[in-house]
C-alpha cells in the first residue's frame, strides 16, 4: 500500500509538471518528457446508441502523432509565422481523477480527466476542452516518459477554432 501511495504521488506530480510546462509554453521541456516511441492520438467522439458503444471512432483521429510529427508541431510553433498561436492562447490544464489502472516495474497505465481552459486573442468567452486521457508512462533511465497518450474529448463538434494546442 505504502508503495502504491508513493507511485500515485509520483505519477500525479509528473502529470502536474507536464501541465505546467505546456501552460508555460515550454514545448521543448515538454518534449523531453516524451518517449521516442510515443503514440499521441485523439479519436473522434460520436453520438451513438447506448447499446452500440463505444461512442467514439478510432478510424478518425484528430491527433495522430509520433515523436517526429510532434517535433514538427513544436518547431512550427517556434517560427514567427505560426499565426494560430500568435499571440499564444492562454491555457490552463486541470488534471484530476488520476487513477493508476495497471502497473509493473517499469510501466504504468494511468487514466485522468483533463479540463483545458483556452483563452484566445481578445475573446471574452473561453473555450473549454474537456475529456479523458489514457496514458502509458515508462521508466527510461530513471525518468518517467510518456509512451502513449489517448485523449477523448467530450464534444462531438469541437467548440474551439483549431487544435493548435496539445491535449
Amino acid at each position: 500500500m505504502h508503495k502504491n501511495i508513493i507511485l500515485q504521488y509520483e505519477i500525479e506530480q509528473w502529470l502536474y509538471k507536464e501541465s505546467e510546462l505546456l501552460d508555460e509554453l515550454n514545448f521543448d521541456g515538454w518534449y523531453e518528457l516524451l518517449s521516442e516511441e510515443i503514440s499521441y492520438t485523439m479519436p473522434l467522439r460520436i453520438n451513438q446508441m447506448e447499446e452500440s458503444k463505444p461512442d467514439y471512432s478510432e478510424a478518425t483521429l484528430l491527433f495522430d502523432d509520433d515523436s517526429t510529427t510532434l517535433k514538427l508541431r513544436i518547431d512550427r510553433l517556434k517560427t514567427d509565422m505560426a499565426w494560430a498561436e500568435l499571440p499564444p492562447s492562454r491555457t490552463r490544464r486541470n488534471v484530476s481523477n488520476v487513477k493508476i489502472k495497471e502497473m509493473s516495474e517499469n510501466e504504468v497505465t494511468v487514466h485522468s480527466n483533463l479540463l483545458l481552459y483556452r483563452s484566445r486573442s481578445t475573446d471574452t468567452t473561453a473555450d473549454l476542452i474537456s475529456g479523458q486521457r489514457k496514458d502509458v508512462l515508462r521508466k527510461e533511465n530513471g525518468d518517467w516518459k510518456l509512451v502513449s497518450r489517448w485523449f477523448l474529448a467530450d464534444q462531438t463538434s469541437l467548440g474551439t477554432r483549431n487544435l493548435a494546442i496539445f491535449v
Partner: protein
Amino acid sequence: MTTTSTKQVPRLDEMTRSELIQYLKDTVKPEEGLIPSYIFSHPKVYELEMEKIFLRDWLFVAHKSEIPNKGDFVTREMGGQSVIVTHGADGEIHVLLNVCTHRGMKLCRMDNGNQKNFTCPYHGFNFKNTGDLIGIPFQKVVYGDTMDKSKMGLKEIRHAVYADLIFATLDADAVSLDEFLGDIKWYLDLAFNRAEMEVVGLPQKWNVDGTWKLGSDNTISDSYHTLVSHGSIAKLGLVPTGDYSKYGYQIYTGNGHGLNLGMPNPDGFAFPESLIDEYKERLSKDQYDILKQMKNMIVCVSPNIMILISSMDLKGQKISQTSLRIWKPTGPDSMEISSWVLVEKNATEEWKRLSEQAFTLTFGASGIFEQDDTENFTDITQNSKSPYHLQENIVFNYTMGMHQDQVEDFVGPGIVYKDKFNEANSRAFFRNWLDQITAE
C-alpha cells in the same frame, strides 16, 4: 455639446426587402473587385443567404461509401435542418427530413448507425428507413379509421448523386444536379472518380467564429495566402519557399464553382503507382494527363464545399491526401467545419494509413496548415461587425489579376488563367452569390 456630423450608419434592419436588395446591388461590385465588409457578418445578409442559397442550392450530405449496406444511415444538416441519409431496405438512398410527421420531434440523434426503423422518442411513431410510416401506438384506439399512414411518411428530400457524392436540395424546383454542377464535374472526376474512393471513419467537426463565405472565398481563388498564412510550413522545409504555390491554373466553371490547380508537381506522381491502371481506365486521357502532373487541387463547389487534394513528403515518403469539407453556416458570423478524408479503396493499407496521417497533420482540426486559416476567418469576420464599416462603406480589394488574359489552350473546361495568384475566381464567386441573394 453635440456633434454635427451628418454621417449615418445605413440601417439594413429597417430597410424593406427590396431596399435591402438594392443596397446590396449598389455596394457589392464584384466586377470592380470591390466587396464591402458588412456582407461578412450582417444578420440581414445572412437571412437572405439562408433563404436564397441554402434553401435553394444542391448541398453535399454524404458520400456513398458511408452507407454501403442496407440499413446504414448518417445524420447530416442542410439549410439548418437535420436530415437522415439512409441506405433503405429497398436498396435505394433516401434523404429524409429528421422530423416526425406527427409533432415535429427529431427522430434520430445518432451520427450514424444501422437501423431498419426509426422510432420517435416522443410518442413512438415508427418509420421504416425508406421513410414509410409503419406503426402508431394504439392506432385503432386513438385514431379509429381516420389516420392514413401512407400520407404520413417522413418528408423525402430531393437528392442526386455524382461521383458517389450524395447531394440534396430543399428546393423541389431546383435545376438538376447535373446542370447545377456543370463543368466542375470534369474536375470532381479527378478527385472522386479517378479510382474507387472511400471515406475513412466519420467527419471531424469544429467550430469557428467566422463566416462560411470566407471559407469558400479562400477555397475558390486564394493560393496567394499560402506564402504568408502558411509561411511556417515553408520555414520548416515541408514545402518549397517563395512562389511555389503560384504555379498552375485558376479555373472558373460557372454557378459559383471553381478551382485552383497546382501543377506541375516537382516531386513526380503523387498517387499510388499501383493504381495507375485504374486511373487510366476511369479517367479520360486529358484528365489522366492532369492527374499525372498534379501537385494539388483546391475546388470550391458553391455554396460551401471545399475539396482538396494535396501532396507532401511525410517520413521520407511521397504521399497525397484527398478530403472534402463543408463550411456550414451556424449564424451570421459563425460556422461549423465538417471534414471528410477519402482514400483510394484499392490502395495498400500502408498507403491509406499514411494518407490519413498526412491529412490529420496538415488539414484536420489540429492540422498545421488548417490552424492558421481559422485565425484569418475569425479576425476578418470580427472586424466586419463594427458599424463603422457600414457607415464608411469599407470595401475590401479583390482586384488581383484583372490585368491578366485568359488562356485558351488548357485541356479542361472553364475560364482559365495561368498561375494561381489571382482573385478572378473570387470576383466570379461573389457575382454568383450576389445574383442569388438578390434574385426576386
